[in-house]
């Protein structure tokens, strides 16, 4: 299972790449493997203001549907609309091409509530 060290994580298996006050969000390698081949992605509206923990997206594979939650409060400023036609990018490249959406957040301290790569790995370990 791949867990890049430079990202932040949420215990519900989302990752965040923080760049200034924008967080790019996706699901982890572990999560994509659990969901198996994804066939459909429902992404949030750009401009939507979300609280941490809000349901913002739904990922579907042939037999599973999984809800995705905003890992941090802020405004959705971009979504990866390339996934509409190629949801399998989430399986093939969960940390790069398979990103889901970007959130512009206000509170620097919200980042402190996220997990480090080490803490996340610890959570998934058998």
């Amino acid at each position: 299972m791949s867990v890049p060290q430079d990202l932040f994580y949420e215990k519900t298996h989302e990752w965040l790449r923080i760049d200034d006050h924008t967080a790019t969000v996706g699901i982890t390698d572990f999560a994509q493997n659990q969901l198996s081949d994804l066939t459909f992605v429902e992404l949030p509206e750009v401009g939507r203001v979300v609280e941490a923990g809000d349901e913002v997206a739904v990922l579907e594979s042939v037999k599973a549907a999984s809800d995705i939650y905003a890992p941090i409060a802020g405004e959705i400023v971009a979504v990866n609309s390339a996934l509409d036609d190629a949801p399998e990018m989430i399986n093939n490249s969960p940390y790069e091409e398979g990103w889901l959406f970007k959130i512009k957040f206000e509170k620097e301290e919200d980042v402190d509530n996220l997990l480090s790569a080490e803490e996340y790995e610890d959570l998934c370990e058998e």
Partner: protein
Amino acid sequence: MHSRAVQFDEPVSYQRGLELQHRLLKARQADEIPDTVLILQHTPTITLGNRGRDNYLLKTPEEYKTLGIEVFHAERGGDVTYHAPGQWVLYPIIRLGGKGADSHNHLWNLEEIALRTLADFDIEGFRVEGKSGAWTEQGKLAAIGFRLKKWVAFHGMSFNVNLDLSGFQTIVPCGLVGQPVVSMQTILGDACPPMDAVRDRLLANFSEVCKRDLEIFHSNNPPASLL
């Protein structure tokens, strides 16, 4: 803490099954209860998954009503299927992906439970690449569709034992045209085991495949969270 199974002797309406699942889902997300598996039979019902399309329904709403079949749009993954007495429905409301994370995914585990249960009764079942569920030479025997919310799974699998299969004639099961649906009875005929024996093997195989010890409750004496 032991995981729990709750077994129902009388058929349960789909609506009641949904309510139970939603209640258990919330409680499981909040860690108020351990992983819990419901095993039950539904009264005759057709359910469509999230992407399920109405054109897989071959009858009108009035015709379904006349046949005594309820129709539901379910929030699970997967496509259209049919439930009726004589089919076990397994709803594992279990947390995935925490400590001791399942090495295989939930879909694989559910298929494995079906295949092992078939093997217990000398039926050869297999997976079909690109199609989920459990298959036999004669046709599809178990169907799978589930959803995750906060990584707690709900919905699950249906496994045909000795139900009247004519309900499947009123839909295009899983959107697969021309694919026969079978039951254990189709294959074994008079040698088909009783429902209780199959239920016990499904639970035992769940316990083994999902590595969860089960404390078994009956619906007439359920754990407090189900009252």
